[in-house]
């Protein structure tokens, strides 16, 4: 048990049995470490097991196998949940409550005293930009507004660890930026944030570390730098008239796409001769960029079956027993 880890999982598995005795392996031996104070992103295609994993951490689902800790306590320990906040993916809050009442209700469920939860509810309504809507019933809220209130309720207990399952689902671009700001603020306050999201560009902006889950297994895990190590390159973009020059570089540790030459090297020294050659042939260089794979590139690499080269089918692995 490492004190610097907010989540430390080993060999977490979940198998469902269907009425026809078919086994559905939602999770197949997950090993995962989330450091305290970081924003951690969990991504994967539909049915990869992301929500199942989060639900196991939140005691909503019982694992078939599980070794690990959350905030230093065994997974499933109810008392630990006092220091954890959670926003489920497909939540539905009682429409008869106002935003403030909902936040206060979940505050009470966290055993927070009345005066504290009233004060905190006011602060959170302001944090999520819902101050003017606190006294209105949830039935009058848009999906984005309910999502903001959902995030507020997840923070009512001033948690050390926050798990957000698709937090920007249904939220407009302004709201998404606001949520990113909230995540940044939580990180600055030293909280650990665990985010499940399909929106890779958002995760890339806020997460310090990510894990990619495919068919119930961790395909890769680490910081963006770690995951893209060895995959950085230089891209030299030429004018359309100059693009025929690129054919001369085919097969020389380079990829050619229309007007762009991608050099599989991160050494500036390796790029200079190439520039000289292009210039020598009167080629017009529009731009030279140092790039690395995006999170989307990493994701796509992870969901491709290395043996067949085809994209893995979404969903969990099935096996008849």
């Amino acid at each position: 048990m490492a004190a610097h880890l907010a989540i430390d999982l080993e060999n977490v598995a979940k198998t469902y049995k269907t009425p026809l005795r078919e086994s559905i392996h939602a999770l197949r031996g997950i090993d995962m470490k989330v450091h305290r104070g970081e924003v951690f992103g969990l991504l994967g295609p539909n049915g990869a097991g992301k929500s199942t994993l989060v639900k196991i951490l939140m005691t909503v689902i019982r694992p078939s196998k599980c070794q690990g800790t959350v905030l230093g306590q065994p997974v499933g320990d109810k008392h630990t949940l006092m220091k954890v906040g959670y926003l489920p993916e497909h939540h539905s809050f009682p429409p008869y409550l106002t935003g403030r009442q909902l936040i206060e209700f979940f505050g009470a469920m966290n055993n927070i005293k009345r005066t504290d939860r009233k004060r905190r509810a006011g602060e959170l309504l302001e944090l999520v930009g819902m101050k003017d809507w606190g006294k209105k019933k949830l039935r009058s809220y848009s999906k984005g507004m309910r999502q903001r209130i959902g995030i507020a309720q997840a923070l009512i207990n001033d948690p050390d660890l926050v798990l957000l399952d698709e937090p920007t689902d249904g939220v407009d671009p302004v709201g998404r930026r606001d949520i990113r700001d909230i995540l940044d603020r939580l990180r600055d306050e030293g909280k650990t944030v665990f985010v499940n999201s399909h929106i890779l560009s958002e995760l890339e902006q806020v997460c310090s570390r990510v894990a990619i889950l495919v068919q119930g297994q961790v395909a890769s895990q680490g910081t963006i730098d770690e995951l893209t190590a060895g995959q950085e390159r230089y891209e030299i973009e030429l004018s359309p008239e100059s693009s025929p020059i690129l054919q001369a570089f085919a097969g020389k540790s380079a990829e050619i796409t229309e007007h762009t030459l991608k050099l599989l090297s991160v050494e500036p020294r390796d790029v200079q001769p190439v520039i000289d050659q292009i210039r020598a042939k009167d080629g017009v260089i529009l731009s030279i960029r140092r790039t690395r794979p995006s999170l989307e590139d990493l994701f796509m690499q992870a969901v491709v079956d290395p043996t067949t080269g085809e994209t893995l089918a979404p969903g969990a692995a099935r096996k008849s027993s």
Partner: protein
Amino acid sequence: MIIQTSALFLDAYRDLNSKKLFWITMALSLVCVASFAAFGINEEGMSIFGMDIPIPGLNSEVISKEVFYKGVFLNLGIGIWLTWIATVLALVSTAGIFPTLLTGGQIETMLSKPISRSRLFFTKFLTGLLFVALQVGVFCVASIIVIGIRSGAWMPEILISVPIVLVFYSYLFAVMTLIGILTRSTIASLLLTILFWFLLFMVNTADSILVQQHEAMKLRVVLIEERLVEAEQNAAALYISRQRADGNELPDGYEPTQEELDTANIFLPILRDQKADNEEFAKKLAPWRQGLYIFKTVLPKTQETIALLGRFVFSEEDMEAALRIGADDDDRSEVDDETGEVDVSSADMQRITTEAYNERSLLWILGTSLLFEAVILLIAGWLFARRDF
């Protein structure tokens, strides 16, 4: 723990408060209570909406105002309104509590809080009883006030209705909770619970018929026996006097044989046959009655639970007075000497049936019913605690 429990109850109240059906039921309850004020009793008979209606068998000479209003409260207020109509409305209102919790996207958030599943389950179950608790509470308090003002008879003892109706409803709500957890469907849990309630009603009806018939047979045997003893004494006296009149010497204290008695009263064999028939019929009914009693032991006793109100609210004197309602001097059980048939009066029938039900112990009525409820809730709670959501 108290903070969480209070929050769950407050949430349940807010849920009820947002439902039109809750307020409609409350309004109808108050209309029902207000209607008590429309009824009155005086020396001549009843008064309805201020109009005096002379009724010889029902006036303040026969029963007191207090007993009259207790009867109105128990038979109309509890017997019809709260245990039938309001119960259906309560079932409709509360059928969705667990299915909505399980399927409506709330369960993940609830389970992610530091509260054990078993405590969450049992607290949610108790909050489901809030609908009935509030309805019955308001109904009883309003009834006490209205009846008190109308008649001057203040009857705080009818507050016992609150726990009794609550216990009665909890049997049904436990079943509805189990079905709700199994099916996760509001409609299925409502319909199957009403079906279960209907089955209980059928069992109770069969039980009532059996108890009534069996008790009536036993009463007939007793009445015929009494009549037979009296008739045989008369026949013996007649036989001896006739024999002596014919000059036959009979010793003092002579006891005529059955054949000799039958010559004095030709209807005695008929009485004996009727007594034997009734005894045989009562003997045949006994195992059926006992079997149904055993069967009912494992079921919730809805009928008997509500009937406990009568035991707690009515004294023996009140019961006697109530039985006199509408009865006159001719209304008594009689044995026809010629046919041996017994006409059991409605008052006697009521009395023997009530006595038979009163023999059923509190432990049997509440103990076994609550045991049934506990088993159902344990199964439901186990399923709730074990299930993945």
